[in-house]
């Protein structure tokens, strides 16, 4: 366990040293957040009653999404892992007494956390002071906030375990580019990263909410704004735990298979 903690520590410390990247990230997230809010504003003006979430709940969803982008963005994968598989540097990782899956897991979590820590505060603070209804509103209740934190952790673990699948599949495909492209688009769409899931047509939404992608940002961000009923929240948390266990298990099995048939590329 200690070795994985060390990976986490080193990676986390490393992530904190990229200050310019964090600044650029904050600027991008602000611009993106404002743009999305303006678009939704235009729609809400037409007929606020026809939307599944109140405007202020949608705004909170968007700001939280931007603030914690690094925790949930499926496309933020570890390029170094892909590089090491493609160019064969993975050889070094394989001749160490570590479990590849767990090592990648701790690394990914550290990278995402370090990025989020640097980026979330400026966004949250500014968004909290924005005039109504463009700013972030306080959570629906202390209970909601607590559940928001718990589901956020589950969502982060879920995101990382889905990314692990892509890392491992790269062992089988020579180049991971195609896989990544497909996964990135699918994940963004089905996770509610482009449009929050409640905005989808009823039938479609019911299916989408069952998929593993819905267990990433969809659950915590909606719980925060109080747009889920008690029963819905129970179901969502149950699904998160279920998918986390299922995807992690699949990843571990695939990882063992991959190591058995691995060929190290490039001499």
């Amino acid at each position, binding site marked *: 366990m200690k070795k994985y903690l060390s990976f986490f520590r080193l990676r986390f410390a490393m992530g904190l040293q990229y200050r310019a990247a964090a600044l650029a990230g904050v600027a991008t997230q602000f611009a993106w957040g404002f743009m999305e809010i303006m678009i939704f504003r235009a729609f809400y003006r037409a007929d606020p009653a026809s939307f599944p979430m109140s405007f202020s709940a949608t705004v909170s969803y968007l700001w939280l999404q931007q603030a914690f982008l690094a925790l949930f963005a499926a496309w933020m994968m570890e390029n170094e892992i892909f590089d090491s598989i493609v160019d064969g540097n993975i050889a070094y990782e394989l001749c160490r007494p570590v479990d590849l899956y767990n090592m990648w897991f701790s690394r990914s979590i550290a990278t995402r956390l370090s990025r989020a820590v640097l980026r979330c505060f400026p966004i949250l603070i500014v968004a909290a002071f924005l005039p109504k209804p463009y700013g972030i509103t306080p959570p629906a209740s202390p209970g909601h906030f607590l559940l928001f934190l718990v589901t956020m952790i589950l969502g982060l673990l879920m995101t990382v375990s889905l990314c692990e699948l892509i890392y491992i599949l790269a062992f089988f495909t020579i180049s991971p580019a195609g896989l990544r492209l497909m996964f990135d688009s699918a994940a963004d769409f089905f996770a509610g990263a482009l449009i929050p899931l409640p905005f989808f047509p009823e039938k479609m939404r019911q299916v989408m909410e069952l998929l593993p992608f819905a267990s990433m940002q969809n659950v915590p961000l909606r719980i925060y704004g109080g747009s889920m009923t008690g029963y819905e929240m129970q179901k969502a948390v149950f699904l998160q735990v279920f998918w986390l266990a299922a995807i992690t298990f699949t990843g571990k099995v695939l990882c063992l298979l991959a190591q058995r048939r691995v*060929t190290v590329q490039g001499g």
Partner: protein
Amino acid sequence: MITMEHVCKSYKIAKRNAGFGEAVKALFHREYEIIHALNDVSFTIEDGEMVGYIGPNGAGKSSTIKILSGILTPDHGTVLVNGRIPYKNRTRHVSEIGVVFGQRSQLWWDVPVIDSFELLKDIYSIPEPLYRQSLEELTELLNLTELLRSPARQLSLGQRMRCEIAASLLHRPRILFLDEPTIGLDAVSKLAVRDFILKENQSHGTTVILTTHDMQDIEALASRIILIGKGKILMDGTLDDIRRGGDNIDETVAELYRAYDI
């Protein structure tokens, strides 16, 4: 002790001729060629030996190292290293070996070298006093004092290679695999690395298996030489065995390659 018996390993490689027409044709019909990287390889290496493993490019040297270090699984044959099957019990096996791939880097690029070392300490669960002792000894022998606090990306190749070797020895492995450790190094760095490997073998009894194209490495280090070509062991002997004509070892080896038609 290391034993390999009748080990075979083959790779499947997609091949096609040059040109656009051929590329389109390959969309519908792929031609594969099976490359036999290792073809019935057997040898035994005793504890504390220093073995030079030589052969032309593509002879199967790196494949052998990768099988012995537990990264690759052979198609056939049995491999035993210290009584363990490397690829069956990978994590136990690798804690007793050290590997240096001359063409790759194991140091973390963006952090000081010492951070990479500290991480390795935790990865191999090296007890603190042992780690201090190893680090002190390696720092002195490889002259690393100035280098430890710089990020790996800002070291020259020779400096980095010294750090890489130290990184592979921190946990005091009983067996050390060196895959072209002197590639691209200048004369001074080469001598330093050779000198160090020799000392390491004498003082700690580390078994060293070394692949290289630099015949001076072999002359300086290896008491025993295994020659591999086209996936087969062609010769297993001492330096004198291959030094049939002239003193120039490069020519002698080239002669040898020609004689075996590899």
